[in-house]
């Protein structure tokens, strides 16, 4: 075990997999000579060469489209979107080409698309979004979102090995802030939920950076015992773990950093309404960003993103219900 940041854990996962599988290659804007906008691939071009660490033009559609072709002939490309927000330029290639290829032609598309996502640092409307729900809605794709350094490495390795196109949501605000013990060598984190903290009175269901917000908000909540469930994988969604937590706690708060409407948490809430109804002891409460663009202004951004205080208030309301 070595302690490293969330960002180093992603690098470590990529490097580990590239060393043992020469089908794995990286594509993205400024990921080679410059080492990536966030330095995730710093030093990679020196170790693996420009054939496997490819600097591409500013054209997300081209990056994903080329990767799909490479995957069809047997390679395992990992594409970096410089910011998750820019993935919309590659949307058609992901949704209509990568996601439908197996269905239409029986060809697996083993690509991983890395999406540095999330706000909290005044990045403004083009550099702060959480677009995971766009991909959850479209069949043929998997979507994962690690919250810890250990899972960041395990999930990037599992994503590269999974034969489906996987959208890998990496939260920029965790890059250097989140640190943890990370196992050496190669391991896969399953596409299953994780109990971040055990509890009995209420469960907060969330993923990504909001796991830490939820843990902080409920660490000391008037003596209540609060479970925090880290989904880790959004597609497939670990329905068994969600319903198990609801059965145990009976009160549920669902937290998304994404804009509220049709977010991942909306799907979780719908699942609970449909299959956990008889276990509920109160309404399912949601905390998410309102349906507005993420503002540049620090005080406005702080008001929009779900805060520790807002999560705590929702939990209090429900505990008293």
């Amino acid at each position: 075990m070595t302690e490293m940041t969330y960002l180093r854990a992603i690098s470590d996962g990529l490097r580990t997999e590239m060393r043992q599988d020469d089908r794995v290659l990286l594509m993205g804007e400024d990921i080679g000579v410059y080492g990536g906008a966030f330095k995730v691939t710093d030093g990679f071009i020196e170790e693996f060469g420009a054939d496997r660490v490819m600097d591409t033009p500013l054209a997300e559609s081209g990056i994903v489209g080329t990767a799909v072709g490479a995957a069809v002939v047997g390679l395992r490309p990992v594409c970096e979107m410089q910011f998750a927000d820019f993935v919309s330029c590659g949307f058609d290639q992901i949704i209509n080409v990568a996601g439908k290829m197996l269905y239409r032609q029986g060809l697996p598309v083993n690509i991983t698309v890395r999406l540095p996502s999330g706000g909290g640092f005044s990045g403004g409307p083009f550099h702060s979004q959480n677009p995971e729900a766009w991909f959850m809605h479209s069949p043929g794709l998997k979507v994962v979102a690690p919250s810890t350094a250990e899972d960041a490495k395990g999930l990037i390795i599992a994503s590269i090995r999974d034969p489906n196109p996987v959208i890998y949501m990496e939260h920029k605000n965790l890059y250097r802030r989140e640190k943890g013990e990370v196992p050496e060598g190669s391991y896969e984190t399953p596409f299953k939920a994780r109990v971040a903290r055990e509890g009995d009175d209420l469960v907060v269901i969330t993923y990504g950076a909001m796991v830490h917000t939820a843990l902080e908000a409920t660490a000391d909540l008037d003596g209540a015992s609060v479970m925090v469930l880290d989904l880790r994988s959004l597609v497939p969604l670990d329905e068994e773990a969600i319903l198990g937590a609801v059965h145990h706690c009976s009160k549920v708060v669902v937290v998304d950093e994404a804009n509220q409407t049709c977010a991942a948490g909306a799907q979780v809430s719908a699942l609970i309404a449909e299959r956990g109804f008889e276990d509920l002891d109160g309404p399912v409460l949601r905390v998410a960003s309102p349906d507005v663009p993420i503002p540049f202004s620090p005080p406005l951004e702080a008001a929009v993103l779900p805060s520790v205080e807002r999560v705590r208030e929702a939990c209090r309301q429900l505990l008293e219900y």
Partner: protein
Amino acid sequence: MPQMGVSVAEGTVVDWRKQRGDWVEADETICEISTDKIDTEVPSPASGRLIEVLVQVGVTVDVGTTLARIATDARPGEPHSSENDRPTALTRTADAPPPPPVAAPPPAHDPPRAPAARGSAARRYSPVVQRIADEHGVDLDEVEGSGRDGRVQKKDVMAHVQARGGAPPPDEPTMHIESPYRPGAGASLSGPYTPPEGRPLSRMRQSIGEHMKRSLQTAATCTTWIEVDVSRIEIARRQLGITALPLIARCTIGALVEYPLLNAWLEDDTHTVHEQVNLGIAVALGEDGLIVPVVRGAQDLSPEGLSRRIRDLARRARARQLSPDDVRGATFTITNPGQFGSMMATPVISQPQVAILDVEAIVKRPVVVTDAFGEDAIAIRPMVILGLSWDHRALDGAIAARFLASVKKRVESYEA
């Protein structure tokens, strides 16, 4: 004493909910009775004042016997003329006309009385609170709420159940008898042993005991076992989000249709072979005993449909809300004690059926499997032992073995 099912001749009063002098509303529960088919509550046939209880708790009487008298000309709050020792002009007896056989017994708790309670937030219960109250027969009016505006929360009803001496509801519904063992203070090792005072065996235990003894005396009971690989059931179970029982039941029903000799009754010399499968499922009622509700027409149900019916019957069995028809007419029975880890049993046939299937624990074992090239290998597989007790008067061992082989084939080739 109301007629609870065609074959029921007598019943025992278990509890009087109303005492002499109490006001009782029509359809309000007046007492609880127990018959050898079912335990149930007796609704009052009319509104009035209970002026006389004729059958005391613990007494068994024939169907049709008058249990109590209700003065229907009395008014709530006023003493009745009969309480001044004057003869009453108009009384009605509580030996209700037999309820229609399909009617469900009245709900476990009284209907809301105070109009103020209706519509107020304090009297609305969340789904989990209602479910727990149903499972434990809790009257929610008695539970004090700690939530907003006195709302009853899950923890309140749990605390109420625990204070009353009941255990919290198990995570998985229990389908068979629990161990009666409870850790407690150890008995003193010195001095002579003084056994605790004995009590009369409950009505339900007596009835189960008689039925089981009669079966063993009547049938030529043999038991045959078979070991089955349930890998495909385990996969299907996870896909469908149900337990293994309805899937194994589905395979058993298929085999019953193939071998109808097992789906039969034998009463003296009368042998009745059924086309329709009415599947009895043994449901434990804690320490009280067990009851075998029946899934009618099970041959037409999917595994999901069976799962839903079994869950519904088990829930109503535990809430003591089964109607006599829910427990009648089984043509074959499945019992499922394996969830507690047991490996083998010799179940007793429920008369007049000719067989019963016992589903034991699913255990991972090393087994020899043959791959597509005909090569043998050792694999880890979830295995279960199915035990079939069958009546040698009605059939022979070869049929029993072929039936079990058919169940095995269906389970091992199961496609969801």
